[in-house]
């Protein structure tokens, strides 16, 4: 062959090799993008197979080397990755595949397997330990071989002399002086029978292997972790186990293996008892739980649970760290009404352990969750709950304040010193609720509060609401307020000429007196009816009308 012919031949071979690798890359890409039955990956695969077969037709195998900057054949770069996450080069390089060799006996199914493996691992971003090399090894492809970084054995070689068999440094003549062992197996005539594998043995072996293939690996792992935790005497050892227990806990919940979840939680709680400063482990366990994952897991568990397992799930959730309330609250947003009751029930159970989480729920911007939290706080018998509600009554959120006040009213737990700021609340709803609460019945305390508030809040109350305050005072009030109301009604006729607010006070005082309804109150009102100033008389008249109207209602 002439030199020119040889050059042409080499060039042609190089083109074929380039074509083969490029078509392999295209196929990997197509397989990653399209479903398996799509025509594009299928056509691409056929092209790739043809290209590779063309290279292999020379009778020699075809080896590609994967380096940090591309794919080489011998020392020629034949494929440069288009980008860092190139679908062919990246997974091979990342997983430490140094070379791939296609043999002349390459079959289509083997090529497909290689492509499937690359696609499967190509989608992983993090370095994976269950990697391409292991999959290729497991697949035992006769037409494709590979070398991986760690199979290159860059460590020191075998040194037979480095092994010391005898610790005693015995003389080599010892053997001549000692009696050789001639025991049971050698001496017994029955040994052969003992060692013979019978059909029954073979059947047992098969059964053992079958049984082992079916064993519950999750349960086994949980048992190992629990047993290790049980036997840990050091808090650091226990803490080290927590991420694994947390992970298995989430897996068991997600798979509906609630008995395992319960088992693991109990183990954590029991282990906690071993160490002073309780709940250290549960805290560590909770820290280790992936919260995003947990919400998803809980959502699945709650929505798929079958009724016999409900108590188990409740036990799990009520045993878990109280912070799970936040995950449950997250679940509330995306589950059907049917499952709400279960979640809320669980949250109520959890409230008996800790209320701090409910206080934090109030900071969420979700009014529904806030309302649920306040409702549950309202159900709690703990004083801490009332304190949280009282604090919530000053929450920036109008809704929180409103619901908190509502609960406080229900609990009759609004202390006098907390009333002032509520009477001044920006929210009409809050104010209305409070006034309605204060005016529910005759109460000297409420009367005093309202009267005091009215006396000291000149100019601070919106004129629209002022009448409501007087009405509330009237409903809960008594003759004790008559001097104040009489003064408001009758003593400022001239000021009322210039100040609209004074006129409203007059109107309010008339309404309050009418609601007090005592003889003394009526006397004051009769004075108002006879007043020489028209707006006092008018106030009396409007009070009568509104009273009449509300009575009818």
């Amino acid at each position, binding site marked *: 062959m002439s030199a020119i012919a040889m050059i042409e031949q080499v060039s042609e071979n190089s083109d074929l090799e380039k074509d083969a690798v490029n078509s392999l890359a295209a196929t990997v890409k197509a397989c990653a993008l399209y479903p398996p039955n799509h025509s594009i990956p299928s056509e691409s695969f056929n092209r790739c197979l043809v290209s590779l077969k063309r290279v292999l037709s020379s009778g020699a195998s075809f080896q590609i080397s994967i380096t940090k900057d591309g794919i080489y054949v011998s020392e020629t770069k034949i494929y440069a990755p288009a980008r860092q996450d190139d679908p062919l080069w990246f997974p091979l390089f990342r997983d430490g595949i140094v070379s791939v060799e296609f043999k002349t006996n390459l079959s289509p199914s083997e090529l497909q397997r290689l492509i499937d493996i690359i696609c499967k691992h190509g989608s992983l971003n993090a370095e994976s330990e269950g990697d391409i090399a292991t999959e290729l090894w497991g697949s035992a492809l006769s037409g494709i071989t590979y070398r991986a970084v760690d199979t290159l054995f860059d460590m020191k*070689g075998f040194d037979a002399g480095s092994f010391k068999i005898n610790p005693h440094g*015995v003389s080599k003549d010892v053997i001549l002086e*000692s009696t050789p062992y001639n025991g049971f197996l050698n001496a017994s005539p029955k040994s052969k029978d003992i060692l013979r594998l019978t059909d029954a043995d073979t059947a047992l072996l098969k059964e*053992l292997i079958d049984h082992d293939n079916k064993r519950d690996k999750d349960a086994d*792992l949980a048992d190992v972790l629990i047993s290790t935790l049980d036997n840990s005497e050091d808090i650091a050892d226990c803490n080290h186990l927590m991420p694994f227990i947390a992970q298995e806990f989430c897996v068991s919940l997600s798979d509906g293996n609630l008995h395992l979840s319960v088992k693991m939680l109990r183990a954590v709680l029991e282990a906690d008892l071993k160490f002073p400063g309780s709940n250290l482990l549960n805290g560590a366990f909770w820290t280790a739980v992936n919260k995003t994952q947990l919400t998803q897991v809980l959502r699945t568990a709650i929505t798929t649970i079958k009724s016999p397992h409900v108590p188990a799930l409740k036990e799990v959730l009520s045993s878990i760290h109280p912070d799970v309330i936040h995950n449950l609250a997250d679940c509330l947003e995306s589950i059907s009404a049917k499952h709400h009751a279960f979640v809320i029930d669980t949250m109520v159970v959890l409230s008996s352990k800790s209320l701090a989480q409910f206080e934090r729920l109030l900071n969420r911007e979700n009014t529904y969750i806030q309302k649920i939290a306040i409702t549950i706080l309202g159900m709690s018998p703990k004083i801490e709950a009332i304190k949280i509600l009282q604090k919530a009554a000053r929450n920036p959120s109008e809704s929180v304040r409103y619901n908190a006040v509502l609960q406080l009213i229900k609990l009759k737990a609004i202390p006098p010193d907390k009333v002032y700021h509520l009477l001044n609340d920006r929210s009409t709803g809050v104010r209305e609720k409070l006034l309605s609460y204060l005016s529910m019945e005759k109460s000297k305390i409420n009367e005093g509060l309202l009267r005091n508030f009215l006396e000291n809040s000149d100019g601070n109350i919106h004129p629209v609401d002022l009448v409501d305050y007087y009405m509330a005072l009237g409903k809960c009030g008594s003759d004790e307020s008559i001097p104040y109301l009489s003064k408001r009604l009758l003593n400022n006729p001239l000021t009322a000429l210039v100040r609209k607010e004074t006129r409203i006070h007059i109107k309010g005082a008339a309404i309050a007196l009418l609601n007090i309804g005592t003889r003394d109150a009526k006397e004051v009102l009769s004075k108002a009816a006879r007043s020489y100033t028209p707006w006092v008389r008018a106030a009396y008249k409007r009070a009568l009308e509104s009273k009449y109207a509300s009575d009818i209602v």
Partner: protein
Amino acid sequence: MPQTLSETTPMAGDRIAPGHFLESFLKVTLTLQLYSETSALTKKFMVEFLQALEALSKTDQETAIKVHDGRLFYQGEKVQPGRSNQKIVKKTIEFLAERKLSGLRFFPALAVKNQNQWPSACRILYRCMRESDPPAWAQEQLSSSGVLWLDLITSDSPDANPSEIPEAAEQQPSAEGNSLRVEEAKNAYAHTLEALKEISQIVSLERPSGIRKILRTVQGMIDLIMEDDFVLLGLSTIKDYDDYTYVHSVNVAILSISLGTRIGLKKEALETLGICGIFHDLGKIKIPLEIINKPERLTDQEYNEVKKHSLNSVRMMLRLRAPRTLLQEILLGPFEHHQKYDLSGYPASTGKASLSLYGRIISIADVYDALTSPRIYRTDSISPPQALDLMIRKSGKDFDPVLLKVFINMLGVYPIGSLLKLNTGEYGLVVKTENNSDPFRPKVLVLEKTSDKQWKKRLLVNLSELNRSTGSYKRDIVGSYHPGLAGIQPSEYIL
């Protein structure tokens, strides 16, 4: 080094040179194909053959020539083809191949007495080539002619393979393939050991460690074992006092993978099993060396400390950067390896019905290797057969009885690396227990002591070989020793 055989000189010391005997035999046989026994040439060659037989009869009761793997063996020794005998060796191999024979066995004394049978015997050997089953036809003809001084060895014969050949000679036949495999196995062993040490050091510092290197080495070991477990089982006889835990772990991995292979586990399961074996004693590095190497009996407190190692192994394995699916598989074996078949061991089992398959396998491999490893606290070294004896007594209690049976069948009653005393006064190191052969009669490497008290390889013998004249075995086993007792590291001799 293989023993050198004199190639051309008729006599080397007291023995006749194989080249000379073969040449005289071929000459007489081939001449008789062409000429009558009365021809001068035939007579000349018959005299030469007679001289060779007479010389032989003084030293050997029988003389065997065999072909194995394309190599010629004379009296069990490989005939090294040299410049002068190359042609004879080639011709002899062709002679046997044309007749579909693996070899011939001569009884020289008988042959000398029955010279009159030579022509007919040689003609039978010539004519048989035309028959459809040359060995069967020839054997029948020889028998009917009353020829007792010549035996035909066929591939079916129990002694078709060289049974008594110097150890180096047996390795030669498969020199290239076998030595490559041995090198690969040695590398795999060394690298697994190194990788294990590396990982142990990292996790003992409570740092996470990758597992990929160990995966690769275990995968390599599995490939080797699936091909032929002999080499790695040979390496598993390595014992090391200083690095006991690491060497023991690699040995347990090899033994476990081999046992797994025997019971037909798939590659992926073998991989898991291998990793279980490698890491089963990882927790031992947390035990103070004073306890591990304490010559006296351990106190209760010290023993309790030792008992923590299974769980410590689990704890340390949790520092491996392994995917959950792999971790899920590999923790159980190390966790269970001291729990015992009847669950009476440690750590105490809670509510478990039985040990997993991996736990059962690892516990067998672990105890076997531990028993056969010389330890400072054990003054009496336990020989491999003795270890198996001890184990079989605990079958059904400590060990799964069926798996233990498979294990013993795999290793043989005299496992590879056992040092045997023979009734001939010789010492033999077990090098192989052939599949399907008598597990009580392995192949051993006869060792002899040199003047400087070193053990030297002398002869490879198959203990199932019979003495033709008496019908009894040529050699019997008197008993076994731990090779460490003689300072022997078996792998140095076996591979």
